């Protein structure tokens, strides 16, 4: 059975989506989504443990040996991301029903779950595959479904946000496709391992250089890396809460993983970081991202928008880590991928509860939250501390690893930027906490708020709790990130 797990964890959510649509019942759709995500999570965990003990797993779809068919290759790097994505999907499944009931027209709920299944399928497919074109196919699945997930936001701006995302996302997808096509033109193959084997002979080839450029820019759009981030803030801020939780925690991370896979698993570090000046470029972009994202977040007046802009900044840390292209840098990137996914997922879950209770996520409306909803407030506080990178949170672990990697690379200016953007994070988190804790609520707000539904609280605490445990008991996560980085660099034992 374990031999088929690589495909099952993608195929089960895929099978779940049409079932949701066929059954046309919101409740049944929720169960299906829950089961599919739990199944995917379970498979991912089994895969991760199997990879850790027995080394990479290969799976030939259709039993056509690569490069003739499509292969799935699970190693420590993508097992890491698979566990993360499917785990967040489970949390989203627990979180979703009450939040969806409050935000979405009941007749569309079953379609919404189908879309969530599809989005999960797409993201897992991107991560698991060992075939370059297959990445594009699943990228399209995840993108299309996330446009739909976002467009259903409560306010009319959600449509506009989804449309902007669609325009930019399509551009990104097309660039990726062009890049893959160019790489195919000079090699004649689409299998990642095969490509990796054939490309080193072609360093300096202009077609290949352009391919690297197209893939990088395309995935940078998908990952909302700084100058190409314009779609992210409104998309995540306007999305329905459940989609916000899922997408904010996974969407950009998977795009970054895809870039890592293309850079290290296909084009090769020698080309991307040796032959081309990508390393310097990525460091500049990442540094700009973490400063700009955090700075703009300080000026937002809406909780979800602060969180979304903060994501733009936090992506910068990951990008800087991968730009170092070293063992330490990559494991820092993986650490931050997981840390930020958990923290931001938890914070968006919190924001969703706030939206449910208060009907808005504007900062001013949060006054008195600490007394009216202490549990929600504490989650917000703990998540916020994680964003700042206060010690004993997961955010600190990853930032520490990043700083160590930067020291090793002698990038002192970037270290300064990391510290500065942590201070900016303190400012925007501090604003939220200050209003929620110390400002007295307006007198009218005494009208009864709906209480926090238990499943939503469970999901929120699950994400925040795991991030805290990961911050305190950091060694396993750190080991997994190190193994993931080693797998990408090809230095795994």
């Amino acid at each position: 059975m374990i031999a088929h797990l690589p495909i099952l964890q993608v195929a089960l959510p895929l099978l779940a989506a049409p079932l949701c649509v066929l059954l046309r019942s919101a409740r049944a759709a929720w169960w299906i989504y829950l089961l599919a995500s739990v199944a995917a999570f379970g498979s991912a965990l089994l895969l991760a443990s199997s990879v850790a003990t027995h080394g990479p797993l290969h799976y030939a779809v259709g039993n056509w040996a690569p490069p003739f068919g499509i292969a799935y290759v699970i190693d420590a790097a993508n097992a890491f991301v698979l566990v993360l994505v499917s785990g967040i999907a489970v949390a989203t499944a627990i979180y979703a029903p009450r939040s969806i009931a409050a935000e979405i027209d009941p007749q569309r709920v079953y379609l919404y779950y189908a879309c969530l299944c599809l989005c999960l399928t797409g993201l897992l497919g991107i991560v698991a595959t060992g075939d370059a074109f297959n990445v594009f196919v699943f990228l399209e699945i995840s993108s299309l479904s996330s446009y739909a997930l976002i467009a259903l936001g409560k306010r009319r701006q959600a449509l506009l946000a989804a449309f902007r995302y669609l325009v930019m996302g399509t551009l990104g997808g097309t660039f990726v496709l062009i890049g893959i096509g160019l790489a195919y033109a000079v090699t004649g193959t689409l299998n990642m391992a095969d490509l990796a084997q054939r490309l080193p002979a072609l360093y300096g080839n202009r077609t290949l250089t352009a391919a690297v450029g197209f893939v990088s820019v395309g995935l940078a759009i998908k990952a909302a890396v700084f100058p190409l981030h314009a779609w992210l803030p409104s998309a995540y801020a306007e999305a329905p809460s459940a989609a916000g939780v899922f997408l904010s925690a996974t969407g950009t991370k998977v795009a970054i993983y895809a870039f890592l896979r293309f850079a290290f698993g296909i084009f090769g570090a020698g080309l991307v970081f040796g032959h081309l000046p990508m390393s310097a470029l990525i460091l500049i972009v990442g540094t700009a991202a973490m400063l700009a994202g955090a700075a703009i977040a300080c000026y937002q007046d809406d909780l979800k928008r602060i969180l979304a802009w903060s994501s733009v900044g936090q992506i910068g840390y990951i990008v800087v880590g991968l730009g170092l292209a070293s063992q330490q840098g990559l494991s820092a990137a993986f650490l931050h991928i997981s840390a930020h996914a958990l923290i931001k997922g938890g914070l968006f879950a919190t924001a969703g509860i706030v939206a449910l209770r208060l009907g808005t996520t504007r900062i001013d409306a949060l006054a008195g939250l600490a007394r009216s909803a202490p549990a929600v407030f504490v989650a917000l506080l703990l998540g916020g501390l994680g964003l700042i990178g206060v010690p004993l949170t997961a955010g600190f672990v990853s930032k520490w690893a990043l700083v160590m990697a930067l020291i090793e690379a002698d990038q002192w200016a970037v270290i300064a930027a990391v510290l500065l953007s942590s201070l900016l994070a303190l400012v925007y988190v501090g604003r939220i906490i200050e209003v929620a804790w110390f400002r007295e609520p307006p007198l009218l707000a005494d009208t009864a708020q709906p209480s926090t539904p238990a499943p939503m609280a469970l999901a929120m605490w699950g994400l925040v709790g795991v991030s805290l445990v990961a911050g305190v008991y950091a060694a396993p996560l750190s080991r997994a990130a190190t193994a993931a980085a080693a797998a990408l660099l090809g230095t795994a034992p």
Partner: protein
Amino acid sequence: MNGFVWIDIVLFTILAATAVGLARTRQLFAAAMLSGLFSLTSACIFVLQDAVDVAFTEAAVGAGMTTVLFLGTLALTRSREKVTPPRRSIPAALIAIFTGGVLIYASTDMPPFAAADTPVQQHPLTQRFLDDSMTEIGVPNVVTSVLASYRGYDTLGETVVVFTAAIAVLMLLGRGRPATSAEPKPREALPQPIQHDQRVLRVVSKLMLPFILLFALYVQFHGDYGPGGGFQAGVIFASGLILYALVFGLDAARAAVSPAALRRMVPLGVLIYAGVGFATLLLGGAFLDYNVLDAHDPAHGQHLGILLVELGVGITVTAAMLMLFYSFAARGVGR
């Protein structure tokens, strides 16, 4: 220079002219028609490059279906683009020029077109597809072999993309907002039954419809031997029904194929495709390994598998296209 090169040059010139026209026009109807023309020209170029299956798809989807959907959308909106200040388009133009520049840069090192010694031609992949697919799969059309079997998983993914698009549209447009149900039924946008005295249209459409549907079935099942397959067949099938809807009215079309049925067919196709995959898993093979479908004759198993998955593709594409059309057409314009 042989004649094909001249044809290429002419076609590319038309393509470029169409693109420029598309970018410049403010008439959205004209833009819709021009984009159809663009697709048709592209299809011609694909034919010249011997990519008949691709040309087929491009013609059916790009020139046919997309144009119909554009027109359907236009019926819901104004037919003139809002005039935007020209400076707004400068960044976009820069991006386009830059992208084009990079592509040209890339093409300078590209293997020469149609040469025999390109990496693509020399890779074992191509050799195996061309030489062994007949024995391994036994389907004369190599494209179908690659699409449905060697890279059948990609095709499953593409089917899911169509499925995703369909449910996305259904989710966004599927039902009017609950508030509108109380209002008087808005005028439906596109197909009002054409007047009864317009017999020519009705008679000719009636005459043609069986042939269109028959042709769709032919394309569906002939995909093993010639250009065709589920995608193209689905689009043709849907076009036939859309023609019916256009001439005889949406209600008549709904009576023929009800939206409820469509809502079941869209997932059904994906389910068939994925179901084949799970069936092969249960039979002890890998996912989508059709060989195990027939324990005695793997080639027959391949045939059966390809038939089934193409059927799944056809069902999903037909239903998805029709659903898109229904969703657009049924939206009120009473705003």
